[in-house]
């Protein structure tokens, strides 16, 4: 919006302010003339954009005439159909006021009860107010409206941003300022259990699309003024609210600075989801691994904040970003802490096995069958060979075929409505698997391998991290088909090299392992009893290192 580029009028006004009210009025007349001229200009050129810009530049501040203002507002907003304007008489005076709001965004009933009725039913007004519209506006704000008034301004730009966010604007005839009245009522969803991160044990609360609700959910957990919520506006056109949340004194200040620096460098039209922000601010776009975690669970965010991490909340999405993200936290789920430590530890080990199975199981199958049948017991080799009899393809084609089918089924299962999705599961999993074996396209062992891989990949708590392993699985399969075990080892080395080089906001991706922080190993692949976990993770260099006192 080029609204701010109208320096001359500012100058004019400052100059005129010293010359008294009379001149002020003259200037208003002058602005009105210019305004009418430009309106004509628009008619002549058929809404030429250049002239439009010119109009906007002239109309920077409110005039004192109510109808001029309403007309100007309509033009500035390009005649929106959902703009509701209600002109009312202020009770006990001759003033006229207008309440302007966007219909679907603000609570009309609330406005009627708390703003329109009190103003209309007002009986008396002080003499001073009757003469001075600015004083009258003050009276309306203080005595009549019972809703919150966040701002009082004469700048069109501010007025428009409030209006477009769902607040109502009260314009008074004769006053060159307007009241913003907080009446936002955005359509929103109630708090539900997060679909993608369901737990057996743990709170059944998930974030919603409204950032106010989300912040309140966090505030409910951490009742401390140190919970810092730094608002930013993202999107040149969408003007969304984005909040960087951290706990002062725990989160490392250089981490917070880095996050703020990256967020401030963003310049985009619109951020449809926090995933867009994630991709803009992540360290390496080429890496297959996610460097920022997303979650729908307030308890997960709270725990992370208390570890010294930083959260990014974006208005319009229930997915909150958590950073820095490390490879180890990919195996963690909030449930590990809610269950007793043996269960938590064993489940984590199971997930580690799942990671390796997802990555290497089909590749090992290919390598063993094509290069090293001596690696497994002789009887097993014989039974595999017998089951593969009649399969026309080499192991790698067989594996690729089945793995691609699996990915297709998974993708189709997500897109379809829930009841049909289950049908697809049955059709795909049972029928296709069975039929493929019967038809002699793949061997039964291959079906087992594919099924195991699929189950393993879904056992990884973070969905996006699971995807990266599933992607890499295809590369390991291809390298195994060329060089067997040697190929797998070489690829494994490359993955490790990549992981070691990767950083998430300055924190090494393999943090407690390499570089090694022994204190953090207590909460890595194992989860020791909570009574031992008295220190926060050291690798994020938190300000306050102790989170509990030893008994």
């Amino acid at each position: 919006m080029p609204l701010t580029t109208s320096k001359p009028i500012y100058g004019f006004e400052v100059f005129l302010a010293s010359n008294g009210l009379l001149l002020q009025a003259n200037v208003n007349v002058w602005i009105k003339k210019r305004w009418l001229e430009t309106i004509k200009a628009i008619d002549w050129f058929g809404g030429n954009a250049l002239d439009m810009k010119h109009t906007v530049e002239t109309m920077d501040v409110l005039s004192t005439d109510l109808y001029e203002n309403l007309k100007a507002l309509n033009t500035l907003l390009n005649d929106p159909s959902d703009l509701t304007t209600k002109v009312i008489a202020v009770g006990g005076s001759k003033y006229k006021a207008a309440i302007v709001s966007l219909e679907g965004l603000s609570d009309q009933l609330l406005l009627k009860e708390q703003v329109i009725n009190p103003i209309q039913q007002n009986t008396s007004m002080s003499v001073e107010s009757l003469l001075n519209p600015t004083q009258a506006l003050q009276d309306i704000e203080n005595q009549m409206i019972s809703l919150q008034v966040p701002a009082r301004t004469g700048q069109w730009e501010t007025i428009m941003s409030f209006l477009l966010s769902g607040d109502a604007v009260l314009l008074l005839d004769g006053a060159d300022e307007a009241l913003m009245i907080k009446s936002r009522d955005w359509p929103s969803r109630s708090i539900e259990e997060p679909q993608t991160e369901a737990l057996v044990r743990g709170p059944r609360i998930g974030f919603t699309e409204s950032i106010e609700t989300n912040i309140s959910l966090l505030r409910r957990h951490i009742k401390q003024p140190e919970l810092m919520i730094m608002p930013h506006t993202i999107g040149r056109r969408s003007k969304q609210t984005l909040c960087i949340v951290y706990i002062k004194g725990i989160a490392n200040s250089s981490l917070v600075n880095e996050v703020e620096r990256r967020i401030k460098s963003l310049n985009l039209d619109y951020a449809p989801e926090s995933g867009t922000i994630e991709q803009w601010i992540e360290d390496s776009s080429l890496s297959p691994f996610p460097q920022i975690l997303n979650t729908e669970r307030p308890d997960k965010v709270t725990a992370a904040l208390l570890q010294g991490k930083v959260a990014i909340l974006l208005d319009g999405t229930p997915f909150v970003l958590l950073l820095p993200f490390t490879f180890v936290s990919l195996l963690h789920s909030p449930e590990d802490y809610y269950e007793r430590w043996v269960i938590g530890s064993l489940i984590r080990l199971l997930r580690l096995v799942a990671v390796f199975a997802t990555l290497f199981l089909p590749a090992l199958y290919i390598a063993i069958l094509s290069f090293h049948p001596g690696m497994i017991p002789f009887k097993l080799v014989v039974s595999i060979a017998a089951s593969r009899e009649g399969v026309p393809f080499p192991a790698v084609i067989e594996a690729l075929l089945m793995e691609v089918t699996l990915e297709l089924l998974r993708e189709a299962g997500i897109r379809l409505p829930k009841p049909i999705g289950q049908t697809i599961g049955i059709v795909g999993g049972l029928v296709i698997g069975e039929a493929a074996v019967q038809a002699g396209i793949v061997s039964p062992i291959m079906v087992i391998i594919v099924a195991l891989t699929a189950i393993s990949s879904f056992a990884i708590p973070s969905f996006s991290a699971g995807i990266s392993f599933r992607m890499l699985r295809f590369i390991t399969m291809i390298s195994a088909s060329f060089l067997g075990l040697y190929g797998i080892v070489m690829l494994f080395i490359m993955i490790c090299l990549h992981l070691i080089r990767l950083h998430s906001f300055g924190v090494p991706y393999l943090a407690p392992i390499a570089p090694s922080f022994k204190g953090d190993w207590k909460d890595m692949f194992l989860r020791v009893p909570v009574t031992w976990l008295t220190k926060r993770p050291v690798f994020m260099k938190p300000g306050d290192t102790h989170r509990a006192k030893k008994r």
Partner: protein
Amino acid sequence: MKNELINEQMSNKEIVYTVSNMIIGFGILTLPNTIVKTTVSSDGWISVLLGGGVAILFAWLIGKLGESFPGEHYHTMVTRIVNRQAAHILTLCFTLYFLLFVSYQIRGVSTITRLYLFDNTPEEFIGFIFLLVLAYGVAGPSIALVRLNLLFFPVLVCILLAIVILNIGSFDVHHLLPVLKSDFTGILQASKETILSYLGVEIMLFYNIFVFKKKKATAPIVYGVMISTVLYLLLFIVVIAVFGSVVTEHTLYPIAELAKEVEVPGEVFERFEFFFFVIWLISLFCTNVMALDVAIVGVMSIFPKARRISIITALLPLMYIIGLLPSGLYELHIFADWISYFGIGVAWFIPALLLLMVKLKGGRAHE
């Protein structure tokens, strides 16, 4: 503004692991075989310890030299002690040694991998892939390569210990007897061979860039050598206890055969040596990638304007060709011996002399 979360220092643990992993590279496969050629039954342990002692001495000297110049690498050290021309020459020798070392090892890896893992795949192709992964490794920052050891060295030790433990069933004490029957010259000759297996400490002369703490680096370096000495000793004794000295003498790669002997309870895996090979390959990769990285750092200190990636592209084909030059295992062994002698001269004796010069010059090194 510098992000204080980024950690570019080498911790003591990283130094220990780096040194140990650098030493236990290729030598571990053939060590028992070379020792028993000149010693009787299990007497080779004296040679292992003697070699270890010499290595610890030089490790201590190298550590002391590094401590005198915290945060600086070999080229700057020599420039400070002697002058710039000497630094160029010595760094060039060092670089040459590491380049030859890597080319020999690439060849060795491909030969042994082909022997144990493949039937038809040509050695040249295996070596080529190894080289490509090496190139990927050295293209990144050096500190990442050091940290690779943190991941793999513990696994290597675990697998080696597993081989030892799972072989307990096949121990035969009679193989270890008689004790102390070898003549002194034989033991010394074997020691000469074992010393060559301890090459690798010298890497710390270059990775001294990541060590800033004064008076701290020597102890971890010495620990690193000690860990490898203990592992060598353990493996040597176990090999002799399982195979006996006669069989060992006629086995080319006794440790690999030892891994083959392992029988996993439940027979899930027919051949345990695959595990050994996987971790051995990875460990060798770590050794080589660090050596190559140091060589590149060396070249870059001589030609400061050259870009890292162009040095890599220039060096790799050269090393590939050098690695292919020796024909057959015998020539490869001679090649390896010459590189090792060269390495001991360049990387152990010259730094020791340099340390002597530092001590004679006194405090001037710290200016």
